[in-house]
């Protein structure tokens, strides 16, 4: 089956092409559009992108395989990345991974039997001050403890990625996440010193849910599968 982007996304490709002086520069953004629509980069997607950007399929495939976030095989409805680099591991990253493996019934690198979750180990996701953390689809979930992690996963399973993101996801957080009252005690700001500026506490994530007019990419990587 040949792959094609939706008309709206085709429009977006035209728009992307205007941003760069060279057609090839649109390769990563267009691959992202395709993956959001299709869930993963199939051989048909590679052919489509190659034709659209006037490149050879080997060049497209070479780029797809270089980057860890492009999937060249199918993934579950939700992709869970557990950060296991040092800062997270110092705060319990390994415990988070083990808990997820037993909860989802699959080891890292695999997809749960019901197809809902793919569990992957990630290298540093740049949220070290809020460790341990996981990324699920497009969102970060930080300052985790295991009960909070359970609630996040359960909400994904019951209500889907967007609902879970609206309730639990975090961005550039400096205080305790609103979803984790139990952890707030560990995040009391230090007494202000003359020079120190403890950066502001994070507003509740719910109010930061992406606006309808300009949503960040959908939380569900399988998006609008047809």
């Amino acid at each position, binding site marked *: 089956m040949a792959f094609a982007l939706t008309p709206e996304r085709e429009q977006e490709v035209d728009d992307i092409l205007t941003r760069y002086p060279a057609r090839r520069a649109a390769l990563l953004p267009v691959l992202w559009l395709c993956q959001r629509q299709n869930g993963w980069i199939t051989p048909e997607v590679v052919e489509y992108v190659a034709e659209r950007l006037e490149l050879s399929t080997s060049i497209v495939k*070479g780029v797809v395989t270089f980057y860890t976030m492009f999937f060249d095989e199918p993934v579950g409805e939700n992709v869970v990345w557990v950060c296991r680099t040092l800062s997270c591991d110092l705060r*319990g990253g*390994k*415990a988070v991974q083990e808990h997820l493996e037993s909860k989802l019934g699959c080891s890292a690198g695999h997809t749960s039997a019901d197809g809902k979750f793919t569990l992957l180990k990630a*290298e*540093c996701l*740049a949220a070290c001050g809020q460790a341990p953390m996981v990324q699920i689809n497009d*969102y970060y979930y930080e300052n985790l403890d295991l009960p909070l992690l359970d609630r996040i996963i359960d909400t994904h399973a019951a209500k889907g990625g967007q609902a879970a993101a609206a309730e639990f996801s975090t961005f550039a957080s400096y205080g305790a996440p609103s979803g984790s009252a139990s952890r707030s005690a560990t995040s009391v700001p230090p007494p202000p010193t003359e020079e120190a*500026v403890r950066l502001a506490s994070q507003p509740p994530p719910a109010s930061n849910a992406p606006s309808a007019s300009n949503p960040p990419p959908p939380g569900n990587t399988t998006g609008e599968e047809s």
Partner: protein
Amino acid sequence: MSGLVKPLLSSRYGIEESWKLANAERAGAYQIARQSLTTRKPAELKDEVKKANIRGRGGAGFPAGVKWGFLNKQEGEEIYLVINADESEPGTFKDRSIMDLDPHRLIEGAIISCFAIDAHVAYIYVRGELAFSIGRLEQAIAEARQAGYLGERPFGIDHAIDVHVHSGAGAYICGEETALLNSLEGRRGEPRLKPPFPAVKGAFGMPTIVNNVETIASVPDIVEMGGEAWSALSRLPGDGGVRLYGVSGHVNNPGLFEAPVGITMRELIDDYAGGMLGDRPLKAVIPGGSSTPVLDPRRKVDAPNETYPLHKWHGKSEIDVPMGVDTYRALGTMLGTCCAIVMDETVNMVEACRNLMRFYKHESCGQCTPCREGTGWLVDVLDNLCAGRGAIEDVDLLVNISNNMMGNTICAFADGTAMPMLGMVQKFREEFMEAAINGVPDGVRHDDSVRAMVGGGA
């Protein structure tokens, strides 16, 4: 000693919905850009940045003003500004806060910088994982365009400026500036041979300046205060201003702090990050991202001669030296991104080292043999040591492999792997020897000290 009376970079973080144009503008956003573009000359702005002595905030610490000075536009060329938001260095989490909480500061900095260096297009290369930050930035750019701050005639002047966000897709190496440029151009993120340097031949073969997010976000303050005044906020000469400090690991209050350049690591841990978790003793701290060699608080600065740059701190602990690009280089490490990973006495350094070397093995782009093979080999040796299959010679093998990686590759990735590896063996050799004899005992896992807190079972 200069006191930071009010925050600069993070001054708008606490404002409700600070990422929206109206709210940011009420707190002063775009005033400096308007003033700069309508009343000042590009050369003056460049000069302010040079006088500010701002050392690049991405980790290498190269003076940004000097970098801008390398541009020498030829007939028919176009200059590009590329902003590096591929924040991926383990331990580092500062640039995300700017993008999430004050994207307009970054855009304002980009506008002023484009005007100063005669660029018309800026690309912000954001790591793909930060989809949320990308959404924030795109929204902020749309608002700025709507308001007439970006586009054909920003603030009504005849110098078109536009800013585009380019999403990466998961590759640490794309933080290396030439790998980033390849990725921007739709290629595999493999670093390019230098020279030519990006300022001569960068994005799309054109002269290009690649700066870190925090560097560009500092430009409005530099221009507003004047380069010299901004520089003087620092406690150190030749390394100006204020910066974002991050602390992760075993402290009571991990997080981000804004402070002058030149505070000490001890201050950062004790005064800013709330001290050590559970009051356990500090064992080691990686000062500025995983590629910077580890500091050992037991070690004293050895600079008896008055001509030594660190003489002033002779006999003091390594963590009492002010954090600056030059002071840390003299100390045998690097300031890097100024985001520290703090480890208490429960951490086994061989295990911690193995964790980091796995990172490098995973992230090596594979282009150069010493790096591709060396990173994997280091992990193999460390795996053996941890599993009790090691030998005493393995400790020197780690040193040998590292020495053969350094300086033998296209980019600095191999050096960024070898330097912390060598630092670990140099400072914690006895622990590596112990592992070579007995392995790392079962149950020693570097998250032990927080397992109870996380709620993890045995």
